[in-house]
């Protein structure tokens, strides 16, 4: 038993328990319980309840083994974590029942529904609690027992589990997509809005097997491809690009209008993410007022195309798009002028202020005759080519898609150019960059200006997509969202931005009924990311090396000086 760090077990067990008690008390469990994953077996609420002891058991088992403990000790610690994680949850069940009947007045979410959920619909509270204790303890044990399975088996199993959960969670969407294709398919796979349990089992087995095959074959395929002549490799590369392109072109037809709408929103944030990435990821300029560019693009589009009394010119979408981009660039340039000599935190605070100023200006009575104040601008027409109107989300998708392609192309080109190097040098060490002959003022201005461009584009598309714009669409949260998706995806990483947008913008749209917990989830996600994976989901190669080469770094930074 000497290899078990009991304090760690105690801490982790209680943390897991408190997390469960907390999400119960604020109502997450009950809300999420309405979404079924596997019919009659598992709901999203239950999943959240189970994950904490499972994860704590996994961590504690890992630590015991790393400290040189035996498998038995690792299992024992997992058991301990499971038992401990129960304590706060049990308190949540017993306290309002036995001691503090008034507790519910403060914590309105500790409802009978929650108690029913926690005690598995048992008649008596006692048998229900015992069931919960048993289950959580077992989960702690299972968590630590995962280390008994060799890694190359454990990984496919974990990934398969994730697939089942994802497919189950989004059954409703899948049903909508599948129904027009084949009705019997839907009834064989799904029951209500969840996976059937036998199908879930089959899905688990298939994905696990597939994953196992893919991971074991990946290297051999890679080497085989490398042995091909370079012309073939190039051809293969181009072919895969074309394939991806075709897939993306077909996407809105396949996924239907709701998912297209989600994709359009994700696309708008990818546009903004790619833009802000120039300022933050490349040039290291922490700009917290990115919403400015978004607002400029949207309002210019609104004013110049609207058919309402505020509209001036009633120009075509395609004519106004370049005007929006250029205006955003000009604004970016002008707002960069006063902050040129600021660094780090000061820059962040000032740009934060700019973002708010823009929103207040849009709201103000002063600009009301021009842009409508709180009433905003209405009757902004949809983009059209001759008689073809991009009226629905599945049609607007293509505009966003090509916009993203364009900005992506520009980003990649800039990334690998002299300009990109100047930005990176500026980020790394402004003084040294100056000593290399880089005009830091010009470089900063260029970063702000180009960074603003795609924000303007996103705003313009946003305005004509919605048809109406109001000042409160341009609040701080837009800037924060864009910044968060860059951080979650990986600073300076272009694929990271796409994944970040999918996770932070796409997922919440798909989980609309839980909208009130959106910011809570953001906060948790950001904290977990900072602790567990500070380089982001898909880090740029550079950041990854930077944050995980600590041994190398320490030898470099501690010379005998």
């Amino acid at each position, binding site marked *: 038993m000497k290899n078990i760090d009991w304090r760690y077990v105690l801490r982790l067990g209680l943390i897991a328990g408190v997390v469960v008690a907390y999400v119960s008390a604020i109502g997450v469990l009950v809300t999420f319980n309405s979404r079924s994953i596997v019919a009659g077996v598992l709901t999203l609420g239950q999943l959240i309840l189970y994950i904490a002891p499972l994860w704590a058991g996994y961590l504690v088992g890992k630590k015991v083994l790393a400290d040189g403990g035996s498998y038995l000790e690792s299992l024992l610690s997992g058991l301990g974590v499971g038992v401990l994680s129960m304590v706060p949850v049990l308190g949540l069940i017993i306290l309002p029942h036995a001691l503090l009947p008034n507790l519910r007045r403060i914590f309105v979410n500790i409802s009978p529904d929650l108690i029913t959920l926690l005690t598995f619909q048992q008649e008596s509270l006692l048998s229900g609690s015992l069931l919960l204790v048993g289950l959580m303890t077992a989960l702690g044990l299972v968590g630590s027992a995962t280390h008994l399975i060799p890694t190359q088996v454990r990984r496919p199993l974990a990934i398969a589990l994730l697939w089942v959960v994802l497919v189950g969670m989004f059954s409703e969407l899948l049903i909508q997509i599948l129904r027009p294709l084949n009705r019997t398919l839907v009834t064989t796979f799904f029951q209500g809005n969840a996976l059937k349990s036998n199908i879930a089992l089959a899905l688990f087995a298939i994905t696990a097997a597939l994953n196992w095959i893919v991971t074991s074959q990946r290297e051999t395929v890679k080497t085989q491809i490398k042995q091909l002549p370079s012309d073939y490799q190039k051809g293969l590369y181009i072919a895969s690009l074309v394939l991806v392109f075709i897939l993306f072109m077909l996407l809105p037809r396949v996924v239907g209008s709701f998912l297209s709408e989600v994709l359009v929103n994700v696309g708008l944030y990818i546009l903004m993410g790619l833009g802000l990435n120039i300022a933050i990821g490349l040039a290291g300029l922490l700009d917290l007022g990115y919403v400015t560019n978004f607002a400029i693009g949207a309002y210019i589009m609104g004013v110049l195309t609207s058919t309402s009394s505020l509209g001036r010119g009633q120009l075509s979408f395609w004519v106004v798009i370049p005007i929006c981009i250029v205006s955003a660039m000009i604004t970016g340039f002008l707002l960069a002028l006063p902050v040129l000599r600021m660094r780090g935190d000061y820059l962040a605070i000032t740009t934060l202020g700019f973002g708010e100023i823009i929103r207040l200006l849009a709201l103000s009575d002063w600009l009301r005759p021009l842009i409508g104040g709180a009433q905003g601008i209405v009757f902004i027409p949809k983009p059209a080519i001759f008689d073809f109107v991009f009226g629905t989300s599945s049609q607007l998708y293509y505009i966003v898609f090509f916009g993203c392609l364009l900005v992506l192309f*520009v980003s990649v*080109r*800039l990334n690998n*150019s*002299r*300009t*990109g*190097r*100047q930005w*990176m*040098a500026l980020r*790394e*060490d402004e*003084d*040294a*960059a*100056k*000593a*290399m*002959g*880089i*005009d*830091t003022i010009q470089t900063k201005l*260029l970063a702000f200006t*180009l960074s603003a461009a795609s924000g303007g584009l996103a705003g313009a598309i946003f305005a004509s997509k919605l048809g109406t714009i109001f000042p409160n669409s341009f609040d701080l949260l837009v800037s924060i969202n864009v910044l968060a998706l860059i951080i979650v995806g990986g600073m300076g990483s272009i694929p990271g931005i796409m994944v970040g947008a999918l996770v932070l913008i796409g997922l919440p749209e798909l989980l609309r009924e839980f909208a009130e917990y959106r910011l809570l989830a953001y906060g948790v996600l950001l904290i977990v990311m900072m602790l567990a994976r500070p380089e982001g989901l898909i880090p740029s190669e*550079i*950041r990854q*090396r*930077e944050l995980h*080469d600590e041994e*190398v*770094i320490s*030898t*470099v930074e501690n*010379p*005998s*000086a």
Partner: protein
Amino acid sequence: MTDNILVAEQVTKRFGGLVAIKDLTFAIPRQSIVSIIGPNGAGKTTFFNCITGFYTIDEGEMVFDGIRLNGREANQITRLGIARTFQNIRLFSNMTAIENIMVGQEPHLTSTWLGAIIGTPFSRREEVDAEQEARRLLRFVGLAGKGDAMARNLSYGDQRRLEIARALGSKPKLLLLDEPTAGMNPKETAETTQFIRHLRDELGITILLIEHDMRVVMGISEQVTVLDYGEKIAEGKPAEIQSNPRVIEAYLGRGAAASATINTAA
């Protein structure tokens, strides 16, 4: 005076009430190796910063190759042909060695962001050339094969070399090295000394050196200038400096080790 590449005429630099450099008059002959030595806080690095435009001088005049430097920004001065390294290495740590040198080549690159986006033949050509030149410089400083390593992952000695390579990227006429052998062991120090001489002989550039290691200073300098409290207290050939009573006094007066020689300074 055309044989002097840099002339400082009665340069004074103050920080508030503190006079960091006082009435310093100083000349560097073309294609020579000149050292500035002096106790800690004597104003050596401040003088470097005055030459390179990081500080604006309060009085006096700085002339480089016939061009007045007063009032020019650091980046402009670099473009005139002065390159430097830093006392505490200041590479772009999260960029590769090659990228670091390519940033050093800035003064000779002219492609624009628009050219990069469009992918004009000119900017492609320039990128390829710049990379080739960077690889050549990397070989020149003895770092061949390490071009794709992140600068921060290089060993300490390699980082010093890379910093010199980066400075050479701008094809300078005058190279300022701020304690190039700081933190090196005797073997590395000897190699670096060799290398600095080689730099001058091979590339024909002028080198101004701040150095604490007296073996390096006395070994390669053709002229040594001693600063103390921002003032020049001695100037001459290494041998003359070694026997100068004011120099010995300046060093020992610091209350350092009670050594009779100045070998242990720093």
